[in-house]
């Protein structure tokens, strides 16, 4: 038997104390009340002639308690199990290597590679090893299954070879997600553990504070798994970073937050901003960016081929940020015609997080598709006026397309105007647009057109009864009884603007309609009527799905030009149409900040692309993808350029992608903090190299598993209880004997 703290065995010498007390005991055996002590002097201790021990059992119990306590404190364990551990049984080790953005700091990656090689050197012939890389997710490089499938002589070489393909990326760290997954991997194929004594997770990482380790608190670690941390130390703890605040440029400028880590020494920094092109300059067909060897190690580097950077710069000099604090600065006077900017922080030695990217949000595009006759240049045709009525503004853009142009329906960002009877194909298109959520507007210049409008909204004609006939107009009719609260007329909900009498309508259709009966899905509401009571504008709504989304058809029962009326020349015509478009564009769309590691659906960006979309990465790599089926993974910081062809012509946009802000929190987590989160770390610190230290660690491991001291303490407590009972009993007996006779 061995002992972790053998010096405590010296405590056994204390067993002499109960013997000593036993021999020179002068404990009185009772208490005798007496009338007065005035004639009595205290007696010296009585020492018997033989000085013999009277109560052997009591003495033995006390001595046993002292001996057991000393034994327990010396932390005994059986060392023969340790030998078995070394020689007879194997362990299963998962090596986790951090490849998050913070590992780009100087010197860290070389340390990580060294630690992996050390672990491989320590592995025994019976051990199983798996190599896993992680940032926000776990990436297996070599699984246990693969390891088992390899020849024993080639295993380590394979691992080292795969290690060479690894390098830090740009993503953040999520230990709270990665470690539990790694434990699952470790304990997978549980039947194999019968031959494995130990399951170990070796974490090689800088364990920075932004690793999202908090959620580990909720993880229930299996008893069979231990975690060893190979903590990597950067050459310097200095680090500052910057993040864009918000997603737009405020009136007072672009707001940037500059952070300085607590351990940093520099406190003064400069911030530089430069405009960059959001779209590639080159008009050549997209190609993969060139890759050329750039250094003696044989590694390649992608050279950005298309982004051009311009001077002048905008700068904020001498920003003072004390360690552990942050400061928000405002960069004003950025040119409004430029959309993309690169911001750089200087004065910080740790440079991986010293750049930020910003792109002005793109205005939404509303597509207006016109189904009607006429030419854009013919002032007699409705098209002539419609094409000129819809104006693009900085808040939204309008694509006006003729009916023969195919483009995907984009939900509630489209307006479809129908001014002639549709054939079957056209009707199907319009109906599809309606069901996709487009706003449909029907100019009911004829009765048939009016009836068609109802068929668009409510295809089953037996649900809604209607008919349209030509109305008899005496002279002209005027709009009256207008629902100003409806969004169509809302811009005119003002006493100065609500005069609708200046629009004479010489011809219109009249409708007999009934409210929908037997179906709650469709309603028809009169939004405006003529002074003769006939409906002038009707909104027909149909519920499209269970979520409550509705499709809407606005039916004007009169023509907008020609012999019906001069609606297109009315002062309210252009505001009304643009207000419709404004509503469709939406004013509360949020622009989200994008960080490295996120994915977006290409269709969400190129909403009205009619063909494949061209994407240019910040590194210059280009690719062409199908917008319907493609997801863009944002794997690096910078500006992603996206170009496509819309129904009205080429379109493009840019996305600014920045580092995960948490990755800039580079101060390392302490081992105690990890233990507090429940990570089962051994007591000894990491980076043990000498065999003696290893042996000590193994001894501690053995002792912590065997825990003999607990049983010894329990035995000691039981003995003390017995001693207490026996001593009390003997005292009672003596007290009875001590009573005066």
């Amino acid at each position: 038997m061995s002992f972790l703290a053998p010096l405590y065995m010296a405590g056994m010498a204390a067993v002499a104390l109960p013997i000593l007390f036993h021999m020179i005991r002068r404990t009185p055996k009772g208490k005798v009340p007496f009338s007065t002590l005035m004639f009595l002097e205290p007696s010296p201790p009585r020492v018997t002639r033989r000085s013999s021990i009277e109560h052997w059992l009591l003495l033995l119990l006390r001595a046993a308690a002292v001996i057991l306590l000393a034994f327990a404190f010396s932390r005994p364990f059986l060392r023969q199990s340790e030998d078995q551990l070394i020689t007879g049984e194997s362990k299963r080790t998962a090596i986790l290597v951090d490849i998050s953005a913070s590992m780009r700091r100087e010197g860290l990656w070389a340390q990580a590679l060294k630690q992996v090689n050390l672990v491989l050197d320590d592995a025994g012939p019976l051990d199983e090893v798996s190599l896993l890389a992680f940032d926000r997710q776990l990436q297996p490089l070599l699984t246990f299954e693969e390891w088992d499938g390899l020849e024993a002589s080639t295993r380590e070489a394979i691992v080292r070879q795969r290690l060479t393909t690894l390098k830090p990326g740009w993503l953040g760290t999520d230990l709270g997600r990665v470690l539990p997954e790694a434990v699952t991997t470790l304990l997978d194929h549980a039947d194999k553990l019968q031959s494995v004594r130990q399951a170990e997770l070796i974490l090689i990482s800088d364990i920075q504070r932004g690793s999202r380790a908090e959620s580990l608190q909720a993880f229930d670690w299996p008893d069979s798994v231990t975690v060893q941390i190979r903590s990597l130390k950067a050459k310097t703890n200095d680090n500052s970073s910057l993040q864009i605040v918000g997603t737009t440029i405020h009136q007072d400028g672009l707001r940037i937050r500059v952070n300085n880590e607590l351990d940093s020494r520099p406190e003064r920094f400069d911030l530089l901003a430069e405009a960059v092109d959001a779209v590639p300059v080159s008009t050549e067909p997209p190609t993969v960016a060139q890759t050329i060897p750039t250094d003696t190690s044989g590694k390649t580097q992608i050279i950005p081929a298309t982004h051009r950077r311009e001077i002048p710069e905008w700068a904020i000099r001498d920003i003072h940020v004390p360690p552990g604090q942050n400061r928000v600065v405002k960069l004003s006077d950025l040119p409004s015609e430029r959309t993309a900017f690169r911001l750089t922080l200087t004065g910080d030695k740790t440079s991986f997080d010293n750049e930020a990217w910003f792109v002005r949000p793109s205005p939404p595009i509303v597509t207006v598709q016109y189904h009607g006759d006429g030419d854009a240049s013919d002032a007699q045709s409705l098209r002539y006026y419609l094409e000129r009525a819809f104006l693009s503004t900085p808040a939204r853009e309008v694509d006006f397309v003729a009916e023969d142009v195919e483009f995907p329906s984009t939900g509630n960002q489209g307006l479809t105007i129908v001014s002639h009877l549709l054939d079957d194909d056209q009707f199907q298109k319009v109906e599809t647009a309606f069901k996709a959520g487009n706003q449909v507007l029907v100019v009911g210049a004829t009765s048939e057109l009016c009836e068609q409008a109802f068929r668009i909204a409510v295809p089953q004609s037996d649900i809604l009864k209607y008919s349209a006939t030509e109305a008899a107009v005496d002279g002209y009719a005027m709009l009256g009884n207008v629902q100003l609260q409806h969004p169509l007329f809302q811009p005119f909900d003002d006493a100065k603007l609500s005069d609708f009498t200046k629009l004479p309508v010489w011809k219109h259709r009249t409708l007999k309609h009934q409210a929908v009966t037997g179906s709650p899905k469709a309603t028809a509401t009169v939004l405006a009527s003529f002074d003769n009571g006939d409906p002038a504008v009707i909104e027909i709504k149909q519920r499209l799905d269970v979520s409550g989304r509705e499709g809407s058809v606005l039916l004007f029962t009169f023509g907008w030009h020609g012999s019906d009326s001069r609606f297109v020349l009315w002062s309210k015509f252009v505001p009304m149409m643009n207000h419709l478009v404004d509503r469709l564009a939406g004013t509360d769309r949020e622009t989200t900040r994008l960080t490295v590691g996120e994915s977006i659906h290409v269709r969400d960006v190129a909403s009205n692309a009619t063909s494949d979309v061209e994407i240019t990465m910040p590194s210059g790599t280009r690719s062409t993808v199908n917008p319907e089926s493609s997801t863009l993974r944002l794997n690096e910081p910078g500006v992603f350029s996206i170009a496509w062809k819309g129904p009205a012509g080429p379109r493009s946009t840019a996305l600014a992608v920045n580092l995960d802000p948490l990755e800039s929190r580079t101060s390392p987590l302490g081992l105690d903090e990890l233990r507090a989160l429940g990570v089962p770390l051994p007591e000894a610190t990491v980076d043990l190299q000498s065999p003696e230290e290893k042996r000590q660690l193994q001894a501690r491991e053995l002792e912590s598993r065997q825990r003999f001291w607990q049983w010894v303490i329990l035995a000691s407590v039981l003995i003390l209880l017995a001693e207490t009972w026996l001593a009390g009993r003997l005292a009672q007996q003596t007290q009875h004997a001590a009573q005066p006779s």
Partner: protein
Amino acid sequence: MARSQNNSSITRFADPAVLMRIRSLDLRVKAVMEGFFNGLHRSPFHGFSVEFNEYRQYTEGDDPRYLDWKIAARSDRYYIKLFEDETNLRCHLLVDNSRSMSFGSSSLEYTKADYAKTLAACLAYCLTQQRDAAGLVLFDEDVDDLIPARFRHGQLRQILGALEKAEQGQSTDLTRPLERVAGHVRKRGLVVLISDLLAPIDGLERNLGYLAAAGHELVVFQILDPQELAFEFDEPALFQDMETGREVYIDPASAKKQYREKLDQHLADVQRTCEKLGAVYELATTDRPLEVALSEFMLRRARMKAGPTRSSRQPARRAV
């Protein structure tokens, strides 16, 4: 008259252990006095009856008006009461109620306090019977209860009641109670001190001296437990002073001899002090019958009063 101590007479008196089992003090006193008077009749303590000086056996020619008919009814014997002068005896019974009086050895089922109270009650009974004024002072370190000496209806009951309900006091201090008595009592009388007197002797001499100087007749009963005299303990133990609470480790085997020497010295000092002051001193151990204690007391008092200066009585008028 010669006094002889006859053991056979003693054995005829009630065993204190048996007597103390009578819980009612009133009944206990009557049992004692009955035995006492019976002994009085048959006892060879002739001097006793004379010593008691209120009774004399009837002889022919005595005035039958002074026959004590109660005794005649009880004992069928005729005795003449000797009346004192118009001044009756005033007796003040000072009973120690301190904690040390609560000691009683385990062989006895009663304490010194029980014995002292019974003795005081018996004396009060006798005094009342002979139409003397009896009073009571219960004390420890101060006066706990004081009943002025009177002869009136209910006085004996009041004294017995006070003795019966007296609660154990604290420590012993003779100074204040004796000062109270000295200040309270104007006329000369009899002061009977019943205590274990386990206190420094100098205070006793001083305090009793005041009373003696005032002309009072002093009687001192020192009540001790047999174990206090013998100190027959077997095992070492923590001895606890009942008055101070102090605890001392005592090995009886080694402490006994010294204890007895000191105790004997103390007792001798007490006796000498009493003799010096002219007080009647009686050492009573609690295992001795009360009747014997009373008898001894009467005898000694009679011897002391034989001196010419101590008596104020007049001889009974002889019947014509």
